[in-house]
């Protein structure tokens, strides 16, 4: 019986942590001008530097995307904040975070001290919120910004911007005016027309897109008849969303051959990551898998690194940071 989180042929689970942390990376990439050691990052909300750096050297990741940072501390939604779903999980954290000041005083310096390639994930309830965070990050040592306009768990901002092309264009345009940092816009799958949304973000100045954030979902406790999540609905992630997320990346890539794309959703092994690269992604981020095993992102990066050995064309494209 294999364990539920499947591992691929180019099995790095047999690799020791020692090897995973010390072997040279064979296949680096460049995303929106920023070099990544390898094409695998951690996804926002599933990576906390204090928690994860106890298990591995976070500088080994292609990049790490931090939990969404808001201008002031947010306390998030009430508990329970998670429920299990078939081959996945639904969460309603609601972007709880200690706010930008705390981030700048603690997480960011710690990450940079450790040598990580840092994507700061930015959250807001209003355009003004996002603008303030991005403005204050302008001279800070984070390497990329990831504008989260796709969180299904907050009532204002979050997904409401990410599902409306006009509102999104407006916000991203405003942010573009105030930052030179490479700006990734993270898109929501809860839309009819992802291509229209993606184009709006790119037109307004996004340097890259990351997709997808979670899909709206819920569970009900059949003993009580009530939703399990205190917030009723939440965001579904994990292997269950993999084929759906993959098709979003594919569709956006077909429509926009030139924009760097970071594929996210349900990646649990190197082979899954490879599917995203073939679908047109330049890199990927690993989310829920890290909840099930702290070193999953690193293991996946190693598996992908090995799988790319046999795919020199793809590896070369990545190395040069070419898109389609």
């Amino acid at each position, binding site marked *: 019986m*294999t364990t539920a989180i499947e591992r691929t042929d180019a099995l790095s689970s047999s690799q020791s942590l020692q090897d995973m*942390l010390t072997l040279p990376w064979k296949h680096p990439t460049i995303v929106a001008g920023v070099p990544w050691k390898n094409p695998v990052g951690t996804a926002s909300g599933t990576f906390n530097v204090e928690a994860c750096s106890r298990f591995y*050297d976070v500088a080994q990741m292609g990049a790490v995307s931090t939990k969404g940072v808001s201008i002031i501390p947010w306390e998030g939604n009430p508990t329970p*904040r998670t429920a299990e779903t078939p081959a996945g999980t639904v969460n309603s*954290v609601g972007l709880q975070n200690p706010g930008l000041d705390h981030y700048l005083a603690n997480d960011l310096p710690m990450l940079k001290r450790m040598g990580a390639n840092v994507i700061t994930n930015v959250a807001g309830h209003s355009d003004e919120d996002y603008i303030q965070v991005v403005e204050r990050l302008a001279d800070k040592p984070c390497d990329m910004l990831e504008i989260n306009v796709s969180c299904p768990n907050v009532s204002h901002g979050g997904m409401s911007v990410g599902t409306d092309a006009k509102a999104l264009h407006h916000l991203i345009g405003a942010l573009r005016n105030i930052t030179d940092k490479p700006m990734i816009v993270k898109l929501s799958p809860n839309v009819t027309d992802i291509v229209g949304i993606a184009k709006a973000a790119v037109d307004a100045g996004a340097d890259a897109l990351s997709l997808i954030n979670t899909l709206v979902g819920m569970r009900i406790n059949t003993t009580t008849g009530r939703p399990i999540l205190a917030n009723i609905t939440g965001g579904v992630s994990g292997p269950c969303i993999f084929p759906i997320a993959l098709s979003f990346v594919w569709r956006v890539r077909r429509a926009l051959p030139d924009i760097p794309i970071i594929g996210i959703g349900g990646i649990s092994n190197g082979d899954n990551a490879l599917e995203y690269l073939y679908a047109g992604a330049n890199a990927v981020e690993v989310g829920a898998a890290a909840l*099930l*095993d*702290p070193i999953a992102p690193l293991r996946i990066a190693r598996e992908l690194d090995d799988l790319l050995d046999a795919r020199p064309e793809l590896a070369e494209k990545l190395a040069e940071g070419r898109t389609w």
Partner: protein
Amino acid sequence: MSTQFIPTQIKQRHTGPAKGSHDASDICRCHEPSEGIVVNGESYLPARRSVPIVSVRQLDQGVIELVICDRYMAEHARPAQFANLFTHDGLRLMPRPFGICEICGDEVSFIFAIVGAGTAQFAQMKAGDSIDVLGPLGKTFDLTSPDARYILVGGGLGVPPLIQAAQYLHDSGRENRTTAIFGYRKHHFADSIVGQYSDDVRSIDEEQGNVITVLDSMDAELRQISDPVVILSCGPTPMMKAVAFWASSRGIATQFNLEERMGCGYGTCVVCVVDTIHGRKKVCLEGPVFTAQELGWESER
């Protein structure tokens, strides 16, 4: 753990594989390093791993004891820490956190109730099967007070961390006696286990009353003790709140072991929060132990 096994004789914990007449001890051959992994001078915690199951037995209707072999966990776990167990079922990927109960040699036991699909699957496992684990996780009870007397107040399936506390205090050779007050629905399924480590077991079942009944009966006794008294408690929230109220009105210090639905168990996802006087804290990383004061439970009923 199993009855043939005489953990009270193992004064020194973590001394290699369990001796005694443990049936399945040949399953327990852990080869992982017992220390964390050191790479370039940095030391890392072991991540998720597959370990052998030593035994699975039923303690009561729907209550199972599962023993794994994992040297790292056996050496490093402290009372109130927990571990994530994982099913082999791809439909049920999420971690199942359980309090670490007894530790003997390289073996670690858990006691759990069958309440859903995951626990049902664990109950079906057999000696020799493998299971994925992550841990030990979380912080421990504060057991540093050198002369304190600890009262362990548990309800239902909250008893494992208290058993571990009893074992820890016993095995570390402290003079102080522990008192175990376990409130059961019906059968006193954990008394013989905690009785190995605590010679004062005052359990109670629903027909007889509840843990507060026992605490009340100890009132006079406790007033006469000069040593500091500390209550360690784990169980249903209403029970713990009642204990907090009882204790705070008597100036007795309390530490509570909380449970909350978890996304990761190791502090990365902010799913498992609890409101404290210092704001929302992660139960898995900043807990699972909190004082009544931190929880604002002192004046609640």
